[in-house]
């Protein structure tokens, strides 16, 4: 079985999948959503963003929607992206994998703070 491009799932790709869970977004919308959900720790540049988007498209994890305008950003038509069911499934399994890791870390008592 050939190795898939997204195995393991890179952090940027996972963040993009998460960004698209709630709504369809264009490139800049994805960048802002990722920055927001990572508290500004990850600001995807165009190169990283679009090369990740390309791989996600190739893997069928996201798909393109019809170009349209973003009312907030003006009248230029933008390409929007949407999460596919395969993308949602992968995001869920990655989140579960991370949750398992977190459980182990908790058991080993290496975590600090009350929020985890």
């Amino acid at each position, binding site marked *: 079985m*050939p*190795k*898939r*491009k997204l195995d393991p799932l890179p952090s940027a790709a996972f963040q993009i999948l998460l960004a698209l869970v709630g709504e369809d977004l264009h*490139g*800049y919308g994805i*960048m802002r959503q990722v920055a927001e959900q990572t508290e500004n720790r990850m*600001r*995807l*540049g*165009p*190169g*990283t*963003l*679009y*090369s990740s*988007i*390309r791989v996600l*498209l*190739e*893997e*069928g994890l*996201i*798909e*393109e929607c019809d*170009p349209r*305008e973003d*009312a907030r*950003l003006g*009248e*230029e*038509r*933008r*390409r929007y992206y949407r999460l*596919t069911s395969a993308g949602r499934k992968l995001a869920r399994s990655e989140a579960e994998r991370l949750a398992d890791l977190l459980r182990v870390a908790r058991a080993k008592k290496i975590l600090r703070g009350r929020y985890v």
Partner: protein
Amino acid sequence: MSEKLYAWLLRLYPSHFRETYGDESLQLFRDRARDEKGFLPRLRLWLDLLLDATISLPREYLHIPSARVVASGPQHLNGIPTFYVLQNASPRPGALFVGGLLSLVTLATCWASLGHYKNPANSQATEFGYAPGESRFAETRPAPPNPPSAASAAPRPFTQPDALNKTERKRVIEGAIANLKAHYIDKDAAQKMADTLLAHEKHGDNDAAMDPATFAALLTQQTREVKPDRHLTLDYSQSPLPQQPLGRSPEVLAHYRQEMKKQNCAFEKVEILPRNIGYLKLNSFPDPDICRIPAMAAMTYVNHADAIIFDLRDNRGGDPAMVQFLAAYLFDHPEYWYNPRENTTERSWTLSPVPGNDLADKPVYVLTSPATFSGAEQFCYDLKMLKRATLIGETKGGGAHAGVWHRIDDHFGIGIPETKAINPYSTGDWAEVGVEPDVKVNPADAYETALKLARNKLKKN
């Protein structure tokens, strides 16, 4: 200046990346530059971009170009082995090192040669920009037969669409100016637009336009510096534009008919809500020649409602004839129906009363959002002027005067608003300013607000 710098940086990326995402990358840069003003945010932006280029450039050069063929068409991917990378194992560290070194050398060479950069002979044609059928005029009624414009420049073959030189740019600008002067409704503004376009070209503001689509967008933007007219637009098409307007082609009409069939003629929802309130979610005003029966069926379905809500929050306009057709149901006598695209004729009145129609005296609520545009704004504006509806939501886009498409050459065309009808209600209309709603609420709350208003109104009756 900074956009020009980023455009140069983008040229370091391989052609397959620039073809697919060059335009979007530039757009993303513009968005960030607009939102991140001031010294520190701007510094952070550039650091981000340089770091991003360092990480993504080697990856892009290592990317297998064949995969890009399927990148834009995920629907074709099922079962095709290009899902997978060609190797079972990761590249060896040595290969990564050589790749990285090569990238650095390429980067340095490109930087060194930037000062002498001219149109590369091996550049590929880009896929940016709107296809002719995707222009923002696609929502309007297919254009009437349009004799070849006297102002159109003679069609010339476009040998190298990816690399516009000064002469080609000048030809497109001259073609746009000739059409503007000949057809634009506001002659003073047309002259100012011509001066602005020439001034920008003279100052080298168009030199950063990497490809024809960006150049077309730039010219559109420059005309809007004079007047923010959203129906005035210059578009580029990768495939050669037909000699005759698209609207006349039977293929385009057949495609439109098929699309309308799939979309139920843009009637997304038609239902009777509790308290006998009719609700129609209409996402465009389609051509009545094709959608008359679905439109009649929708109106018949809500015919016995005690109040009616038109949800136009996602409606981008369409055919004025459908706007007028639906408005006929809201009056019991022929009512003058202002259409900014046509001067007054005998067809300027609604065909009211509609036989068997019960809606003429029922309260009407129209939901709007900033996305509501053009023909949908006409519906709102006229009903508001006639005091026939309560508009709920946010101010809309401000598109009133539809454009007629003029071909400049095989790849460039310009849509120009050409008529300005007399408005019986006031000196202006909603062009460029939108229609002010009667009840200003967040569009997301407009539906609930309309229901509440309708229920209260029905309670009083």
